């Protein structure tokens, strides 16, 4: 590692190994090649792509359609990614390496949409708006994971917590006819399950992944059992009021951005609220430093007088609260009724987003958007009648996660003691 690039900034050392530099550069060039051969060579000159920039059902924050010539746009994107790839191979971007890969990925996606919609029109704003909504459970799931894993407890049970919370939210919301009380109940159910996870993995020190699996099986079973016993026969129990769209005065009338972020579900606002709170609490307060030290080196933290066990319990419970909100989104913010197994693996994708985002809230949000966007593209392409089967599109988030996990983030910022139970009388 003698000739690796080192940049020191904010007292952190960013080191990019020569192999990684090479791999990143080659993948950026590959993107350029895909744009050239798959899209540019398959586009007739003079084709126009029409992007509708106002999502359906919105009356404020409208915007005129955006019409671009398909071929020149693709060529510009091709040239840009080629330049980035070559620069990466020759000089390297140092700290900005990951950002540049992300940018090239965006180029690829954008050129794909431009090519697909060549000669037709596609509602880009609608796609982006639904991407934001689809990102909510994934991002909140990732936040939930960050909270507990930063304290050294792997939480694979987010899926189960979300599933349980979505059912409890629907039922209690229906009974009380209040979305807010439903959400509160959803949070409480997440809290209870996380308490079980905490007791099993912190007190009884059983393997955290097994404890999470217990909760996942349990939730799937109990929600199925209860919904077949009660919800099938009594539909009034499964008809909760939903959170409606709340426009923020002023900001909502900004074109494109307004409908996406400021004229939307309360869950989207909560997502940003939690982004800020978790970022500040974990990385700028003494409490957060202590919590992270428990995840990095519990023994040292203990020696300094930090109560490791209590800190871990607090972290796991907070994680359960956030997972409960994420679960409430399914029934109270998105669908309006509970269906068996409706979380459909979003909790696991949330975990992937957490790893993708390097155990940081901001990164998790970005990863959540990418996954949400991939979902949104998949469903829109089906409407466009694209030749690519939607199931193949739907695989992409998982494949991206595996590639990222394998090559790009390397070891990442994973808490060093993640997954290790802590006990005072262990001599390890």
């Amino acid at each position, binding site marked *: 590692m003698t000739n690796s690039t080192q940049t020191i900034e904010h007292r952190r050392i960013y080191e990019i190994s020569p192999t990684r530099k090479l791999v990143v550069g080659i993948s950026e060039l590959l993107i350029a090649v895909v744009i050239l051969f798959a899209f540019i060579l398959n586009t007739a000159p003079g084709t126009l792509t029409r992007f509708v920039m106002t999502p359906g059902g919105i009356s404020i924050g409208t915007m005129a359609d955006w019409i671009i010539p398909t071929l020149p746009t693709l060529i510009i994107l091709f040239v840009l990614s080629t330049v980035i790839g070559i620069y990466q191979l020759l000089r390297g971007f140092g700290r900005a390496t990951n950002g540049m890969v992300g940018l090239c990925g965006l180029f690829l996606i954008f050129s794909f949409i431009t090519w697909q919609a060549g000669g037709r029109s596609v509602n880009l704003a609608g796609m982006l708006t639904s991407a934001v909504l689809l990102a909510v459970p994934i991002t909140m799931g990732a936040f939930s994971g960050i909270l507990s894993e930063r304290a050294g407890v*792997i939480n*694979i049970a987010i899926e189960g917590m979300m599933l349980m919370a979505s059912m409890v939210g629907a039922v209690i919301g229906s009974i009380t006819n209040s979305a807010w009380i439903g959400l509160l109940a959803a949070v409480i159910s997440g809290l209870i399950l996380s308490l079980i996870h905490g007791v*099993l993995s912190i007190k*009884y020190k*059983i*393997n955290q*992944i*097994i*404890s999470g*699996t*217990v*909760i*996942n*099986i*349990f939730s*799937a*079973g*109990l*929600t*199925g*059992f*209860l919904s*077949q*016993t*009660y919800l099938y026969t009594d539909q009034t129990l499964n008809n909760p009021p939903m959170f409606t769209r709340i426009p923020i005065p002023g900001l909502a009338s900004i074109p494109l951005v307004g409908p996406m972020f400021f004229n939307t579900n309360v869950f989207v606002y909560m997502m940003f609220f939690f982004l800020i709170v978790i970022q500040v609490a974990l990385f700028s307060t003494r409490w957060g430093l202590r919590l992270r030290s428990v995840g990095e080196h519990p023994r040292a933290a203990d020696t300094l007088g930090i109560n490791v066990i209590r800190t871990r319990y607090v972290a796991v419970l907070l994680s359960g609260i956030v997972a409960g909100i994420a679960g409430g989104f399914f029934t109270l913010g998105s669908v309006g009724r509970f269906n068996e197994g409706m979380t459909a*693996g979003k909790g*696991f*994708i949330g*975990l*992937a987003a957490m*790893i993708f985002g390097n155990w940081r809230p901001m990164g998790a949000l970005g990863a959540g958007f990418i996954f949400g966007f991939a979902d949104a593209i998949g469903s829109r392409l089906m409407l466009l009648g694209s030749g690519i*089967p939607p*199931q*193949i599109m*739907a*695989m992409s988030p*998982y*494949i991206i*996660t*595996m590639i990222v*996990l*394998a*090559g790009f983030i390397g*070891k*990442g910022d*994973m*808490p*060093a*003691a*993640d*997954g*290790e139970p802590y006990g005072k009388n262990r001599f390890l």
Partner: protein
Amino acid sequence: MKRKPNKIDEAGETLIEEINKTEQEEAPQKRSIWRVISIPVLAILTGLIIGAILIAATSTTVYAAFEESLWVGLGTAFQEIYRAYEALFTGAIGDPVRIINALRSGEERAIRSAFNPFLESLVQTTPYIFAGLAVALGFRSGLFNIGVEGQLFIGAACATFVGYAVTGLPWIIHMPLAFIAGALGGAFWGFIPGLLKATTGGHEVINTIMMNWIAFRLTEWLLSGPMNRPGSDGMPLSPIIERSAQIPQFFQTPIRFHLGFFFALGFAWLVWWLLFKTKWGLNLRTAGANPRAARYAGLNVTKSFMIGMALSGALAGLAGAVQILAVNRSMALGLSSGYGFDSIALALIGNNHPLGVVLASLLFGVLRNGATRMMVVSRIPIDIIDVLQAIILMFVAAPAIIRSIYRLRKPKHEEETVFVSGWGGGQT
């Protein structure tokens, strides 16, 4: 690096022996049968008690009876529980009265149908054995294979494909060919996370979860596209496999008991022999128990991870293949009733030993088969089995809870069977 093969190998051998010797010495020599089975048996008992409470608590007749008086309520509750568990028993093992009558009458058909519930339990047990062995073998080689579900789907898809696309072969060739195709498909699906763990350190848990979702989407696409049954109106359904590819059933149609059950027992023996009677299995277990020491002893830990993961995947693939070739005879999306997560429970309840896995699988097969009858008789949703399994898994994984409930003495040596830590792979 220069190596003196003889000396190093010798040193390695001694070190491996050393590691395994200490492992054996730590385990108490005179382990009575009760010691081994007390925790699982008590866990099952507690699970059934909690299940009984759940049955009584969700029954409307019980509530109505409680309104009359406490004693009537309790009486009705016990009646309900008895009725449900009686149905569970007769559905899983058979009705003793009917069996005796059938044996007395000596009529062959009557005997067969009287024994059918038990034979059907064995049918349900078969895929559990394969899936449980997959997880157990993974654990023994230090790998947490949470991707059994995906490997099972891929294995089933491969077996189905060979089953219907290859024609004109005699049974003796075609059936094993389809069976092996299932194993290869699963092995390939397991090998990828193994390879990623060995080369990049990406943790197999997150990678196998991702591979699960890729497998679901892939089979969905295969079944509605290239492998679709002609005339199925776009339903994701495969063609029916050739007669020559089928694993034979022993009796006429209502009784589905098939040769695959004995295949499963054979494979359990094979895994046992491989793990505990060959030098090769010893290496696998050594690398799993303590990768660092194994590497120091000159073992190729990387290779061991890859082999372990591929073998585990192969067994999971066989679980899917046997189900297709012997029972379903064509592939649909509802192939698995959650074997993936159940198999983790199986491996743990069976203490990662093939014999234990077979016994645990019998238990799960009996439960699931009996629950079908329980659903008919008492209208209790089959999902209650998932709840029971989660509770049993929890108690088996945290024996301390069981011990404190039943006031058992703590054994001198706590056995630790699973060693999985953070996402980054703990092998370095």
